[in-house]
């Protein structure tokens, strides 16, 4: 019995120490004298790897999710004779929920896992130690540009996801199902509020971007530098990020829309 309490305590202490280390990594990476001449090219490179290379998966997923929403929305709303409101439904679902959440999940799978594996492999091949011994802080050189790139790219990707999704919904609803174009767009325009819906969706995407990127780079930086350790860290990135995104989505939704 006492041993079980002991193990529980040790596990809790390990978790707390992990949170402390994760905080330390972000603090030491981001809080330092700005060096834009060095950082900007590194940031651009990471924006390309983290953001631009994620575009295809985001656009394709956004398109199909928008199309499915249009189709499902139509089949439900047509029973009540409200199929003209399908545009409103597609836009609100995407802007408030699906764009930030699905983008964050896809981002964790594509970019997050790649960040963890890359940093983990750099640790295993002593490239991080090598940087340290050259007198370059790996947190500033390797971790910081990746963190900023994730923070910047995630909201932009979510906005692109929402735009493509709405276009996919419009394609199905207007072109295939024959909903009147004017009512589709005007219903959407009347019901989607910029600060209530669009801004809140973007805030969610920013929060998810910070959390997913933070988890990804920390897991890479803190992993056991072996092939098994990197594999476990990559898995942890996807699992922890997905759970964190879904839990945070509930909390943020309750805070943003709970009183409606």
């Amino acid at each position, binding site marked *: 019995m006492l041993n079980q309490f002991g193990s529980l305590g040790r596990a809790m202490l390990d978790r707390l120490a992990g949170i402390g280390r994760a905080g330390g990594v972000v603090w*030491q990476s981001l809080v330092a004298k700005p060096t834009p001449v060095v950082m900007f090219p590194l940031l651009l490179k990471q924006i390309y790897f983290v953001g631009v290379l994620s575009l295809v998966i985001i656009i394709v997923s956004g398109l199909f999710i928008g199309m499915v929403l249009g189709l499902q929305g139509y089949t439900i709303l047509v029973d009540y004779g409200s199929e003209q409101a399908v545009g409103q439904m597609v836009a609100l679902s995407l802007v408030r929920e699906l764009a930030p959440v699905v983008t964050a999940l896809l981002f964790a799978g594509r970019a997050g896992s790649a960040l963890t594996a890359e940093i983990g492999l750099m640790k295993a091949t*002593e490239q991080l130690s*090598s940087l*340290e*011994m*050259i*007198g370059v*802080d790996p947190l500033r050189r390797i971790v910081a540009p990746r963190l900023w790139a994730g923070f910047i790219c995630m909201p932009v990707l979510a906005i692109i996801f929402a735009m493509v999704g709405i276009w996919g919904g419009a394609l199905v609803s207007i072109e295939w199902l024959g909903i009147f174009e004017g009512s589709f767009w005007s219903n959407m325009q009347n019901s989607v509020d910029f600060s209530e819906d669009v801004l809140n969706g973007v805030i969610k995407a920013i929060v998810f971007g910070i959390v997913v990127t933070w988890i990804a780079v920390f897991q890479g930086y803190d992993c056991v530098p072996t092939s098994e350790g990197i594999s476990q860290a990559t898995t942890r990135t996807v699992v922890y990020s997905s759970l964190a995104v879904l839990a945070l989505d509930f909390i943020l939704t309750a805070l943003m829309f709970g009183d409606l």
Partner: protein
Amino acid sequence: MSINNSLESIIDIRGLGFSRGARQIFRHVDMKIPRGKITAIMGPSGTGKTTLLKLIGGQLRPDAGYVKIDGLDVHRISRQQLFTLRERMGMLFQSGALFTDMSVYENVAFPIKVHTELPEDMIRDIVLLKLQAVGLRGARDLMPSELSGGMARRVALARAIALDPDIVMYDEPFTGQDPIAKGVLVNLIRKINQALGHTSIIVSHDIQETMSIADYIYLLSDGQVIASGTPQALLSDKTDQVQQFMQGLPDGPVPFHFSDDDMLEDLCAQEKR
């Protein structure tokens, strides 16, 4: 009088203790690394030779004692001061640790670009000189994945000496190298040390190669220094532990078997179950 007492030391290690979890790596290590000489740290695998280099470089923190470089306690200075101190150090990692997204030229140029504001043409001259010194000027455009293990280590050596550091640490430079590459590395380390006059610390268990270039040797075992002296002094040391290591005897004070349990008891325990 031994060489490390007669010469001015650049690195001073006193009462160093270090553990990984429950396993104690160092109990009480005292060392003085003489300035401008080649000092070798030798010992059986798993004695913490690489760990000692990481402690000297400030990548690990000791549980007890201190490491001072030119009077500066490596583990008591600020992070910024530590990174400034590391500009005076070069380290050749066992794996080479080249940056895989950079070419050979960019790898060697990296420390110069980061720490100096020299114009590009001057950086080019320095890089080509360093690559010429290791015989790889012609490989400047290759990527690390295109290099053999020996070549990668020579590029890493060129990078380690790019800023003409005061101290160069070599982590197992001869391990996994063919005889020709070993010979090349031995010559390079000796020549570079003579030409640049820096302090070299070699961590190795390759006795022949290390003995041929070291001015002074520390022999580590069981968490402490068991012997130290010039290569000749160690060769004539009659202590069992020193003899076992220097002559490569399979069993002795450093046991062949990991566990000293009685084998018969171990086998019977299986049968009883």
